[in-house]
């Protein structure tokens, strides 16, 4: 009879912790330009190599290389750069406003700006994103979403379009293709698939784009979304933003150790890509590929965006307690803003001087928007929406029992 040693439980552990530098070799990077670009009607199983590789366009010198480097208008790239810079400025100012107690809570997308912004620029009007709380770039890249109104939502003030019902950053902009953010994780992923199914049922041409973080892929709604998307060949892009951290839990605890999140898609019969999320050109090219595939009725694409959550999870979090303080500085995929700026300068479509001017102008824009929003009140000064509004919209019509309860509150 074979004698076995005692079993032991494996609990994944990140290579880096406070005081111990991270060994990022677990990311298994590919060189820029080295990953093939299949036709958009490719079979899902034929994307297996793409789910384990890493699509990158920009190299360390800022050159655009390989089959995913498309002919992209420098004007669009400048717009993307400006939107990323604006998002970073916006986040920094809002975080300070939170520290000043003008709002209860804030969540930045520091280091992840390229993903939402380049993706948004690859979608068409009428498409619908089902975001998480770290895709504010989807809104900030648009010219038809008023920054003042967004800040009013954050401040929960008298002009908050969500009437003070939702935590800051849980925006809802149907007209801008931005589904209401729940706050519960992963629920939106299957909803995106349902929305895409509806578009197919109606014979429309619109597609959906669902978003989830690496941590929330462990929820059942993630697997359910993949099953439904595959079964009904839904016109949907399934984005997994792998920023390595879910609050204090590294991506190995969500199931990323020794495999990739993109590989889950292949297992479910979905074409899947693993892409450098800090490479604006790669994000745009992969998003365009997936959007074209969905809109051509070839079905869903799962894209794992490899990036790094450079800031804390939220204004309530202190990452210094669980990861090296300078971790982002060592992250091999760098800073998406610096990389796109480097590329634009390399192709002669941007300069340091223009960059400085843009930075100043965007800072002034955000500051002016904040000032105007604060003139309508902040959570701190008590200029809130009326408590009577608490009872509205629970049902389409106010039912009798809520009318009585509103009366009981005396509003």
């Amino acid at each position, binding site marked *: 009879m074979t004698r076995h040693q005692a079993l032991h439980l494996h609990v994944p552990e990140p290579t880096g912790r406070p005081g111990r530098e991270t060994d990022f070799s677990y990311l298994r990077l590919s060189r820029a330009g080295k990953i093939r670009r299949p036709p958009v009607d490719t079979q899902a199983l034929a994307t297996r190599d793409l789910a384990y590789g890493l699509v990158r366009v920009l190299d360390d010198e800022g050159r655009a290389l390989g089959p995913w480097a498309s002919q992209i208008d420098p004007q669009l790239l400048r717009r993307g750069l400006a939107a990323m810079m604006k998002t970073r400025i916006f986040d920094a100012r809002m975080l300070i406003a939170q520290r000043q107690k003008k709002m209860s809570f804030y969540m930045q997308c520091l280091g992840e700006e390229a993903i939402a912004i380049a993706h948004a620029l690859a979608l068409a009007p009428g498409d619908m994103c089902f975001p998480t709380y770290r895709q504010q770039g989807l809104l900030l890249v648009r010219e038809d979403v008023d920054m003042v109104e967004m800040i009013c939502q954050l401040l929960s003030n008298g002009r908050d379009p969500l009437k003070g019902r939702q935590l800051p950053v849980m925006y809802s902009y*149907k007209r801008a293709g931005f589904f209401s953010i729940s706050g519960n994780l992963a629920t939106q992923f299957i909803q995106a698939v349902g929305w895409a199914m*509806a578009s197919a049922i*109606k014979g429309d041409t619109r597609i959906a784009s669902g978003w989830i973080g690496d941590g929330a892929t462990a929820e059942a709604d993630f697997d359910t*979304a993949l099953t439904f998307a595959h079964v009904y060949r839904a016109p949907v892009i399934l984005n997994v933003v792998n920023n390595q951290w879910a609050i204090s839990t590294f991506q190995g605890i969500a199931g990323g150790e020794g495999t990739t999140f993109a590989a889950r898609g292949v297992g479910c019969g979905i074409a899947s890509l693993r892409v450098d999320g800090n490479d604006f050109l790669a994000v745009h090219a992969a998003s365009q590929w997936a959007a074209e595939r969905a809109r051509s009725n070839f079905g869903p694409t799962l894209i794992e965006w490899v990036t790094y959550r450079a800031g804390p999870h939220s204004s309530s979090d202190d990452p210094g307690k669980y990861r090296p303080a300078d971790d982002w500085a060592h992250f091999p995929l760098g800073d998406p803003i610096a990389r796109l700026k480097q590329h634009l300068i390399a192709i002669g479509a941007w300069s340091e001087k223009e960059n400085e001017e843009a930075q100043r102008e965007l800072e002034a824009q955000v500051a002016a928007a904040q000032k105007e929003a604060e003139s309508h009140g902040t959570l701190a000064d008590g200029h809130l929406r009326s408590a009577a509004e608490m009872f509205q919209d*629970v*049902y389409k019509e106010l039912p*009798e*029992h809520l009318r009585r309860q509103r009366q009981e509150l005396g509003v």
Partner: protein
Amino acid sequence: MDVTEQSSETTASARCTPMTMIQALRSAMDVMLERDSNVVVFGQDVGYFGGVFRCTEGLQKKYGQSRVFDAPISEGGIVGAAVGMGAYGLRAVVEIQFADYFYPASDQIVSEAARLRYRSVGDFTAPITIRMPCGGGIYGGQTHSQSPEAMFTHVCGLRTVMPSNPYDAKGLLIAAIECDDPVIFLEPKRLYNGPFDGHHDSPVIPWSQHRLGAVPEGYYTVALASASVLRPGSELTVLTYGTMVFVAEAAAAEAGIDAEIIDLRSIWPLDLETIVASVRKTGRCVVVHEATRTSGFGAELVALVQEHCFYQLEAPIERVTGWDTPYPHAQEWAYFPGPERVAAGFKRAMQG
């Protein structure tokens, strides 16, 4: 109030046909699939096969695979997809094969469908109808017999409905599909084929022999949040719904009590006016449901009656319910609150 008073479009010329509850539910979906191209029907086994209880039989053939189709065995997926479809502008009517199986969909029902309108200030809504067969009496054991209505009535933003007969089932289902709020539509499966009075050893009486089995063929609605007085009476008010409606009727007859039996039909939001008027008249009240007692919807009913009718009450309010145990398989009829237990409750209320 009489059910026909609630019908908004039933005309004198509307042809009535004897229907089982299954046929009435199918007819409601048929009518709505025909009238509104945004209505879609899906769930486990509902497509080609037409549902394990046959409620969607023939609908896929009539309306095509893109409007009536099978879903993977994933209640969370079914409801989550329905919420997304609602955001698009469709009206999804989904079937959860047994109410006992809704639990994996809880997050999508409670945190998503129920609150989407509220959290987005009407930017997005979830006008979905979630059908689920409920209740026991078919030897379904603890996973095919539950009555989870109180889990839904505790959630703000949901409407919870439970018809007791074919006429109401069709009118309420059409009203639910047309409603812009999410509706939980509970179907007492023991009533699918006939009005059940609780005497499980007696032969089944088919709906074709009951007045409420006569169902108009076309469109009509039974208003949500409206109760019906199944039997007017003067001595005692019975508040009940679903499977227990005809049990209560039989128990009153057997006990010789002139009970006013109110079928709530809509459990929440509910028709408080009808309830209060009746209890103020009779001065006595018994609440009857099949679900477990503790924190059951009966507790809410007792509290409401106490709040609104305290000075008219002649006796303590009685509750007759299922026991606080899982629904047993072989001991089903010891669990089920049959006519004897219900009549005993009536007598206690009369003596109090």
